[in-house]
């Protein structure tokens, strides 16, 4: 068998093993959470009998092992169980939430990843000169400001101040002004429903996309810069220079292909963050995504929902890292073209 296939198969198997381990951790973690779902549903004044009845009804009185395997068995068949608090099917409520989260992450990634890599390449091209320093300064500033702060700043300037500013530009023709006002509207609430067109949806999440882009940009940009600078030390870069090639061509053609593995790794980490770590942004913009859904149900001690969300987050995380691993393997010419 081709060694790459073996390696990829190994990684896949490892990924599943990890996911299984994660499921155990999630289950154990939620099992040792303090608090009692029956108590939180029925309130402090509930009688012990009523609590016991509800527990039996919800199945939380079973031993942990039994509960784990019945949960895992359900998950494997696509059944994530029902929410304890409202009795709804979790898979159903989750799917639209997950869809929203992925939608936001997709658009944020579509902008952030190419932008970060391009900025990284430019930073290498102009290393230690002002473009490099400016790029680093801006991206490091945005990563240093807490997400919610960036969110509110953007709302303040783009949703509130900008329309006022445009409205005040009386020297502009009225037609242009109203066109600008209607087209440069940044919604401070990221509404999302099925009746919206794609363009409307994207417009609605413009600000969250901006926030997420600003948050993940620095990490990817700096890693791209570092990875390529590392490759630029190689003797074959000197060979390329002595062929008379220009700097950008050298970076693009000779350095970048050899820096793919570390870059893909950090890109995937950030993609995972876009899916898993967006709770704050969702709250700021009242976006109906997974994060909000999870936080709501944690506070209600709705264990099956927390478990389901945890498992999906774990799967996304492991899946993306798996992709990073596989891309790194494929990017290695020694593995792709064995002797």
């Amino acid at each position, binding site marked *: 068998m081709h060694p790459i296939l073996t390696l990829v198969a190994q990684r896949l198997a490892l990924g599943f093993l990890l996911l299984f381990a994660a499921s155990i951790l999630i289950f154990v973690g939620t099992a040792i959470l303090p608090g009692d779902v029956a108590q939180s549903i029925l309130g402090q004044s509930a009688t012990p009998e009523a609590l016991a009845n509800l527990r039996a009804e919800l199945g939380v009185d079973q031993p942990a092992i039994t509960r784990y395997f019945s949960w895992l068995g359900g998950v494997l068949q696509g059944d994530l169980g029902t929410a304890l608090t409202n009795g709804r099917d979790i898979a159903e409520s989750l799917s639209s939430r997950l869809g929203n989260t992925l939608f936001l992450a997709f658009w944020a990634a579509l902008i952030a990843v190419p932008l970060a890599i391009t900025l990284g390449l430019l930073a290498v091209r102009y290393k230690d000169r002002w473009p490099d320093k400016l790029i680093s300064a801006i991206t490091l500033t945005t990563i240093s400001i807490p997400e919610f702060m960036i969110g509110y700043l953007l709302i303040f300037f783009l949703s509130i101040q900008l329309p006022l500013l445009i409205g005040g530009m009386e020297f502009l023709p009225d037609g242009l002004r109203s066109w600008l006002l209607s087209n440069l509207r940044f919604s401070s609430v990221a509404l999302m429903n099925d009746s919206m067109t794609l363009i409307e949806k994207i417009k609605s999440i413009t600000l969250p996309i901006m926030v997420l882009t600003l948050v993940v940009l620095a990490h990817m940009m700096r890693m791209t810069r570092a990875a390529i600078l590392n490759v630029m030390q*190689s*003797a*074959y870069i*000197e*060979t*390329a*220079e*002595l*062929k*008379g*090639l*220009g700097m950008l061509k050298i970076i693009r053609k*000779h350095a970048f*292909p*050899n820096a793919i593995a570390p870059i893909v790794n950090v890109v995937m980490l950030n993609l995972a963050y876009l899916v898993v770590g967006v709770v704050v942004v969702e709250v700021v913009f009242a976006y109906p995504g997974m994060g909000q859904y999870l936080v709501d149900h944690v506070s209600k001690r709705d264990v099956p929902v927390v478990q389901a969300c945890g498992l999906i987050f774990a799967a996304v995380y492991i899946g993306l890292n798996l992709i990073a691993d596989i891309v790194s393997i494929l*990017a290695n*010419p*020694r593995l792709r*073209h064995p*002797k």
Partner: protein
Amino acid sequence: MTNPLLKVRGLKIGATIYPPGEKSRDIEIVHGVDFDLAPGKVLGLIGESGAGKSTIGLASMAYGRGGVEITGGSVEVNGRDILHSGLRDVRRLRGAEVTYVSQSAAASFNPAKQIMEQVTEAAIFQNKFSRQDAEARAVELFRKLGLPDPENIGSRYPHQVSGGQLQRCMTALALCPQPDLVVFDEPTTALDVTTQIDVLAAIKEAIRDTGVAALYITHDLAVVAQVSDHIMVLQQGAMVEYGTTDQIINAPKEDYTKALVSVRSITHEEKQPTATPVLQVEGITARYAGTNFDVLKDITVDLHPGQTLAVVGESGSGKSTLARVITGLLPPSAGQITFDGRTLTPDLATRPLEDLRELQMIYQMADTAMNPRQTVGTIIGRPLEFYFGLKGAEKQKRIQELLDEIELGDGFQDRYPAELSGGQKQRVCIARALAAKPKLIICDEVTSALDPLVADGILKLLLNLQKIEDVAYLFITHDLATVRAIADSIAVMYQGNVVRYGPKSEVLSPPFDDYTDLLLSSVPEMKLGWLEEVLEHRKMESAGN
């Protein structure tokens, strides 16, 4: 010389250095060098490391490696001053008029690109040839350079061909754009001698056939004597002597050149074996975990107290693996090792302290064998503490004794490795090994990374110390001149086997087996026409068979 292709006048090159614990400062590394090179001629630049020969070679492409900067003088290529033209013009020169062959083709090829793409890149980029023509030209060069399967080797990746083949590909890369001048920077230094001779012949023929001029940079006078018309000897950034190859080799004027020509003049009388060997290697077979072939096959050799056994062979012959087995880093799958009358346990972890102490090692790269953050005193003092529990004044006294033994003066105790030269570093490593008062020291290519004159000094020191301390050396090397200089007995290794073994006088006298013959005849000799002689001789022999 009418119109020189390359005209260098008063070339000065500087660099910024960052000594540890001090302010950075600018130093001059080439102090005003002048020379001309006529079209189609080959000039050999020779000198030890730090002589500035690579720096001068790269200056002919207006390139400074790392923090190196050309600070003065002029370099004209085809009548144009390239130091004072813009980057755009310089880029048009590089890869078109002047090309470069580096020492390590393995590092100089982009691992992610096919060979053909890299070989033709400059020719296409500089609009010298269309892609189609450039590729046809590359195939022609591959054929001329004696590469196997010239039609298809270009579609391989660098890691898919051998080191010697890749070095030829690098030569093809340099010749493909039909340049006027090629800078060869130690193109055969990293190769085994038997590979070196073929690559050298291929380069020489390519230079002759294409009529290209060349700067041939090397530290090996015997090699440069085979290819160059003129030789310039450099020392510490200044020219020592310039002349025709014949004059430099046969009638050197300057003392430094004479020293270079007569280097490796050590004579060492072979000692007779004693009654009981200090080291007996019996039937050792070994392989690395996860592989399915034996790197060592049934190796049996003896080493007598106070003597030197040279293990000689090319890269991949298993000589370093033998050292790993003896030191216990790689337990063998069969065979046993007797050291000083005791059977050594196969695994390092189970050996008593006494065995560890009596068996020391010195490595090829002294740089990486020392902790850069420890002073020389700490480095040498460590085995004294560890094996003998020496402390305080007693330890200091012993450290000073050892430093005297390796001929380093006062004040070295507090220096850091980075403040030492290559030869001094290796001396410190020798002192560290001696500190343990060993019966056997394994020397793994200890002079390979050093300049010939420095290496000579190390070999003399080792021989001297052997007399004083009565220590035995297992001397691993690929360099036959070193073997002649130091060995009492020799084991020639080839593909995991000892193909020839015995006292030095026997091993180095005919009749030879095929491999030893090939190995011995491949060592460059310092005379003109040696390369042709050997190749002619080999051709006749293969025709005779």
